[in-house]
């Protein structure tokens, strides 16, 4: 379980997060949604320690991550996998080396065991015969899959995905969403996804947090969000015609 307590974050004079609290449970796909500039990415980066919080705390199974130094954080970071918006695959390494990199640094596995693990996670994300390709030689959708494979290679307890389907076509986006949801259930990990894609919200959003101007504005499930009467949420989720049509249907018709 990840528990975020009253975190605030400012850059110079600009307050980006204002007293945000949230709880993310194990085995669930938790979505953080909000418009551009709402503070989603900063919120996620504060949770993983890429930004230091000004106040408040982030707790992983009651371990206060915010108060730890770099060395102490290493223990928790080994339990975290993260899929970055652009994949963030290492340019100088092929797909296989990208996946086994963390294992090479921290595990005592032999090379054969690491390659076996890489093949297993690549198979899990439905990729084969890509081991020796460089990141520049694969498509955007494949990069996302490799990034997911890399993130789960070390059996993480927590999986963070920053806009995992940005820049992907709708069909590939659904495949990536379903893959993340399946992996979350299969490995029983706590998954936190940053997105502004309403398709993702309706596909896999078990718990949704809506950020607006740096504040947590709303929290609920995908079924509840369609019935919300909060104006800011409606402005965000019903911005597209497809969602307006969906709203006309009964909430029960939504998967």
């Amino acid at each position, binding site marked *: 379980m990840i528990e975020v307590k009253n975190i605030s974050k400012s850059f110079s004079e600009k307050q980006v997060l204002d007293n945000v609290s949230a709880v993310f449970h194990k085995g669930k796909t938790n979505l953080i949604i909000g418009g551009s500039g709402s503070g989603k990415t900063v919120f996620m980066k504060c949770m*993983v320690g890429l930004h230091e919080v000004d106040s408040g705390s982030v707790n992983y199974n009651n371990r206060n991550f915010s108060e730890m130094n770099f060395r102490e954080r*290493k223990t928790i970071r080994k339990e975290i*996998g993260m899929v970055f*918006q652009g994949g*963030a695959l*290492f*340019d100088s390494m092929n797909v296989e080396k990208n996946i086994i990199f963390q294992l090479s*640094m*921290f595990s005592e596995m032999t090379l054969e065991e690491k390659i076996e693990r890489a093949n297993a996670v690549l198979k899990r994300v439905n990729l084969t015969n890509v081991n020796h390709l460089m990141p520049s030689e694969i498509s955007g959708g494949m990069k996302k899959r490799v990034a997911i494979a890399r993130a789960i290679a070390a059996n993480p307890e927590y999986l963070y995905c920053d806009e995992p389907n940005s820049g992907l076509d709708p069909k590939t986006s659904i495949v990536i969403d379903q893959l993340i949801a399946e992996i979350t259930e299969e490995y029983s990990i706590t998954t936190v996804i940053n997105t502004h894609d309403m398709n993702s919200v309706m596909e896999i959003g078990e718990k949704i947090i809506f950020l607006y101007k740096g504040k947590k504005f709303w929290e609920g499930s995908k079924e509840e969000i369609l019935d919300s009467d909060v104006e800011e949420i409606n402005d965000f989720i019903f911005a597209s015609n497809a969602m307006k049509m969906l709203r006309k249907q009964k909430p029960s018709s939504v998967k």
Partner: protein
Amino acid sequence: MGRYLFHIGRYSVFLKGLFIKPERFSVYVRQTLVEMESIGYGSLGLVILISAFMGAVITVQTAYNLVSPLVQTYIVGLVTRDSIIIEFSPTIILLVLGGKVGSSIASEIGTMRVTEQIDALEIMGINPSGYLVVPKIVAAVLIMPFLVIISMCVGIAGGWLAGDLSGVITSTEYVRGLQDSFIPFNVAFAMIKSVTFAFIITSVSAYQGFYTEGGALQVGRSSTAAVVYSSILILIFDYVLTQLFLA
């Protein structure tokens, strides 16, 4: 002034961050060998080319400037040797390498920063500055003195060839000049300079790349800043070391 103090402070913190125990020593060693090949072997052609012509120009220009019945011709060989050993090979060659290696390091690390690869390293629990920068610094500090020695040999040979072909000095006189009043400490001094400059080039360039913010434009700016600041620091430390050891 405040901006410079900020950079000096952050550079010091950056250097301190490099001296954290490596996550896996063998990975760092392998990475260092890769960097040694990239920095050393990758720069060899350039070093040989520049050194050969540099030696040739020094010989011909020295001969041109020492046209006097009071100065013996073999002095041209002596001046060429000392100019190459004390100044041209350790300073000019490393200034050129500062441009080549420094911009490469700053743009590589800067691109990793803006594409979140450095964040990915940090999330994995790896000290990004240690993993990315330490192998480069160690590789440069180990390999650049060898490049400087090669540069000295090629420069002196280039001067010999140019002097003989142009007829400004005979081979016999050139060799006599090379052997006359040789001070072995000059070579040691050149090694001290090359190690210092190698550290400056890699650490300053890595610092510039590591703190890149933005996109492609900022990566280019970091790369330029890396070359400019490392060149200025090389010239400052060249004077400081000369004052310390030769004055």
